[in-house]
């Protein structure tokens, strides 16, 4: 059967065609800082013919400015790769030093708050956004969700929606202990979860590799589940300067090691996200 490359290119790239109910192209991007209302019913949203964008959960403490900055920078770098990205956080974060001003930010990356009070509410809102955004995302994307770490401790929490999470971990023994404990808890509660780890605050690839290997080996022995590696990030002076200025590292210091590492982790996340959309 003779074929032209154009016939199959969309399988490769994966460009998601717009559905009949998609928003007109002239629609202005959402710039309001108003909180996103949680959906009352996920049924219509999930009935869309287009698969929703993957939702990536990031457990981040309420005072963890560094991890929040890394998450925001990752969403910006993922957008630089051509993805459609949204960063969603609970409304309680509004005005906190964790985030810059809400709305559409650098490279179209959007920061939104929602009035969710628990993990289920947060995830429902994320899914609503992921479904809506899939109609406009020509090249896929990711909805990043900040999950307050204290919500993960709630024993009666509904875990089922969680599918893909990323733990940002330091490489020191204490950090690895904490991450291993969290990984064990998450895997015990949710058999469908895929858990990734990015090591940050490292000074060499060997240091990151050794830390990841130790963490993966421990998680495997405790849960018999694998950890997915999402590279390493550097906490150098450029990161802290960028945090203070609330500017993305990749724009403020594009030649810095921190920017290179962010780009590399974003690439790993985006590749997996595209695979998920196709799968």
């Amino acid at each position, binding site marked *: 059967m003779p074929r032209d490359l154009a016939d199959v290119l969309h399988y490769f790239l994966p460009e998601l065609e717009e559905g009949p109910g998609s928003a007109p192209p002239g629609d202005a991007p959402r710039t309001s800082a108003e909180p996103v209302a949680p959906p009352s019913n996920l049924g219509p949203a999930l009935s869309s013919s287009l698969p929703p964008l993957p939702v990536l959960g990031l457990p981040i403490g309420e005072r963890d400015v560094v991890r929040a900055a890394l998450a925001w920078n990752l969403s910006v770098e993922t957008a630089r790769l051509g993805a459609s990205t949204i960063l969603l956080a609970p409304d309680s974060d509004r005005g906190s030093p964790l985030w810059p001003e809400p709305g559409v930010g650098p490279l179209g990356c959007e920061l939104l708050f929602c009035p969710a009070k628990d993990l289920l509410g947060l995830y429902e809102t994320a899914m609503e956004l992921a479904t809506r955004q899939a109609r406009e995302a020509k090249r896929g994307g990711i909805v990043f969700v900040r999950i307050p770490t204290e919500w993960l401790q709630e024993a009666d929490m509904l875990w089922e929606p969680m599918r893909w999470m990323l733990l940002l971990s330091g490489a020191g023994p204490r950090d690895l202990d904490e991450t291993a404990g969290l990984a064990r808890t998450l895997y015990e509660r949710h058999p469908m979860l895929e858990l990734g780890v990015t090591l940050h605050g490292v000074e060499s690839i060997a240091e990151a590799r050794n830390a990841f290997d130790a963490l993966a080996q421990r998680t495997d022995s405790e849960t018999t589940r694998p950890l997915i590696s999402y*590279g390493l990030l550097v906490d150098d002076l450029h990161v802290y300067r960028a945090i203070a200025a609330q500017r993305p590292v990749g724009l403020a210091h594009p030649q810095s090691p921190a920017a290179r590492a962010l780009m590399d982790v974003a690439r790993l996340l985006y590749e997996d996200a595209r695979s998920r959309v196709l799968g």
Partner: protein
Amino acid sequence: MAELEWQGPIEPGSLRRALRQALRRTSTGWRVVAEEFLAATTPIDLLAIGESGELICIRATEPDADDGGARQLASAISDLSWLAPRISDLHKLAPELGLSPLALPRVALFAPEFAPDVAAAAEHLSRLLGRDRIGLARYRPLRHQGQLTLLLEPVKSEFAARTSPRSSAHTPPPTSTAPPARTLVDPPSPSAFRTGLTEADLLSEPPVPA
């Protein structure tokens, strides 16, 4: 281990997902970029990019197929000829994927079992084409915490091993110092850590002199 064996049929989507997860553990340099990528006549299960930027066509046979992998091998040969002239176009259209326009595509075939003649044919073809461009691996479906998990094992043809010049008593051992060719499915890596960075990327740029 019988209680760990997967019982019942395996949906194609589940098989692809389990294979992708297994490759994540065993072939850390591979990056899956598409699923069910339509080739000349049939969709390729997974399309990946290897460590050298080469396109890797991955096909998995479902357990109930009874042709010993023959149909899969035929599709693989078709895939190679179909993909090769399109590599440079794909590179131009999606440069961010890291595809090398100079690297020839490879195929990786997975099945519960391959017939001996299919394995021998694949090995012979791979030798003719060079650079391990066709490789086979068996998979064993297991149930782990309710999920389908695959154990992968590279296949080497007994026929090819018997007829290999290297195995002949009359042939001196190869003296080439070239690195050994890579097997199709990399042996389980001691580390699943992934990064595209080098140590040089973590060094700060020296200040530009005024």
